[in-house]
C-alpha cells in the first residue's frame, strides 16, 4: 500500500503487552513530527518504544508503519527504517568509525570511509567533531558515547527514530543544541522522532506532541504546549510540578 498524504507515518493501535503491562496504547504521528514520551520511572516508556522496532512484540494490537503492518517487514529491514538509540549506549570494540560502519557490515555493503558525506553528516548532527572518528569508542566519556550512539542510529537515514533518554548524560548546553538539531532534521528531512525523556524542559521546548505514560497506560496525550500549560489529570499535574524543582 502506498502511503498517502493522510496516512500517518506511525500508528499504534490498541497495544497491550502481557509481560510488562502496557495497556491499550493507541497513538499516531506524522512524518516530521517530534513526540516526547514522559512519565515516572518504570511506567513503561522503554517498553513502549521497544515495540515499534520489534525488539519485542505486543500480545495484542498492531503497529502500522506508513500504513503497513510492521510484522510484514523482515525485522532487519524494519530496523533500518526505524532507527533506535537504546538507553544504555553500547560501543562495539574499535574506533568510533568502526562503530558507525557497523550497520553497513550487517548489510554487506561497502564501508563508508571517514570522508563519506553521510558519515560526516551523522556525527555532525550528534554534535561530534570528525576528530572523534579515530578515537577508541570504549574509552570515550558517557556523554561522548551517547552522542556516538545517536550518530550511529542516524546513519541508516531512518524514517522514524526512537530515542531512549538521549540526553541523560549530557550537560544543559549540549542537550539544548542537540535538541535543536533533532528538531531541524525533523523539519528539513521529514524524520519523525519519538523521544523518551526525563528532561521535561527539553520535552517542552522541542516536541510537538507529548505522551504521558504511567503504569503502562496513556494517562494524557496531545499537543505539547497545551499539555504542559493545562494538564487535565491530577497525576500529570503532580508529575510536572515535582521533577522541575529537582532539576533547578
Amino acid at each position: 500500500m502506498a502511503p498517502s498524504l493522510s496516512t500517518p507515518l506511525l500508528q499504534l493501535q490498541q497495544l497491550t503487552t502481557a509481560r510488562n503491562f502496557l495497556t491499550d496504547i493507541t497513538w499516531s504521528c506524522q512524518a516530521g513530527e517530534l513526540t516526547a514520551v514522559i512519565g515516572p520511572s518504570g511506567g513503561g516508556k522503554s517498553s513502549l518504544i521497544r515495540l515499534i522496532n520489534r525488539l519485542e512484540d505486543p500480545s495484542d494490537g498492531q503497529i502500522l508503519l506508513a500504513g503497513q503492518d510492521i510484522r510484514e517487514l523482515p525485522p532487519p529491514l524494519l530496523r533500518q527504517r526505524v532507527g533506535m538509540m537504546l538507553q544504555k549506549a553500547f560501543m562495539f570494540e574499535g574506533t568510533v568509525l568502526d562503530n558507525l560502519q557497523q550497520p553497513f557490515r550487517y548489510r554487506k555493503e561497502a564501508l563508508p570511509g571517514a570522508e563519506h558525506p553521510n558519515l560526516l553528516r551523522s556525527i555532525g548532527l550528534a554534535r561530534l567533531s570528525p576528530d572523534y572518528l579515530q578515537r577508541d569508542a570504549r574509552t570515550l566519556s558517557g556523554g561522548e558515547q551517547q552522542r556516538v550512539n545517536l550518530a550511529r542510529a542516524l546513519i541508516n537515514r531512518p524514517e522514524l527514530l526512537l530515542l531512549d533518554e538521549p540526553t541523560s548524560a549530557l550537560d544543559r548546553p549540549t542537550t539544548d543544541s542537540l535538541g535543536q538539531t533533532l528538531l531541524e532534521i525533523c523539519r528539513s528531512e521529514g524524520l519523525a522522532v519519538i523521544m523518551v525523556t526525563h528532561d521535561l524542559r527539553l520535552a517542552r521546548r522541542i516536541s510537538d506532541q507529548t505522551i504521558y505514560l504511567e503504569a503502562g497506560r496513556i494517562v494524557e496525550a496531545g499537543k505539547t504546549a497545551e499539555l504542559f500549560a493545562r494538564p487535565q489529570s491530577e497525576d500529570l499535574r503532580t508529575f510536572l510540578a515535582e521533577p522541575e524543582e529537582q532539576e533547578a
Partner: protein
Amino acid sequence: MSDKTLLHLNLIQLVYAYALILLSVSLARFRQIGQERQMLWASIRMVVQLLAVGYLLQLVFTVRSPLMVILILLTMTGFSLQVMGSRIKRRMPHFYRIMGSSIMIGCGGVTFYFCLLVVGYTPWYDPRYLIPLAGMIIGNSMNGASLAAERLTSEMRERHDELETALCLGATARQAAEPALRTAYRAALIPTMNTMAATGIVALPGMMTGQILSGTEPMLAVRYQIAIMCAITASVAITAFLILLQGYRGYFTQADQLRNTP
C-alpha cells in the same frame, strides 16, 4: 595379534598394585584429611566398574552382533550427555537435543570415517576396534563440547546489550550472535590444540603407552596415536561447531528478537 610379548598380570600382581592405593589411603589418614573412606570407596568403584566393562567387552567381542555394538555406542553417548548435563549449571535452551544430535553427528561421523577409511578393517562393526575408538573419540570430545555449550550460555548472557544494539542496527540474529559464537568456538578448541602441542613431550598418550606395553612396535603405536589425535581434533571441531550452530538459535525468536531466557 601377537600376544607372545604380552606380560600377563595375574591376581597376585594386581594385589601388589592395589597395595599402592592402601599406601595412599594411609598417607591421607596420617594427614587426617578426613577423606579416607571416600578414597577407598572411589578405588573400589574403579575396580568394580573396570571389571564390569571388561566382562561386557569380552561378551561383546564374542557375540559380535552389530545391533549390540550400536546399542553400546548409544549408551556411551547417553552417559556422556548425562555427565555433561550434570556438570553444566546453566544450560542453553534445548540442551539435550542439541548436545545429543551434535555428538551423534560429530563424534559418530568422525568415528565411522576413521574406522572405515583410516583403519579400514572389516566388518565395520568389529567391536574390538569400533568400541575403544568410539570411546576415545567421545571421551575426548566431551570436554570441548561442554566448553562450547558453557561458553555460549555465558557469552549470550554477558553480551546482552551488545546483542540488542546489533539488532537495532539491522543485524540478523546470526550476525548479532557472531562475536559470541566466535569466542565460544575458540574456547572449545583451545584445550585440544594445547593437548596436540604438548603430546609426546609433556604427556605420553594413554593409548600409545598401552599399545607399547602390550608389544606393539613404538613407531606403529606412534602412527596410531597421530591418527587418533587427528580424529579427536576433527571430532571436537565438528561437534562444537554443530552445538554453536544450533545453540544460539534458542536465544532468539523467528523475528530476530532476543528471547527472555531465565
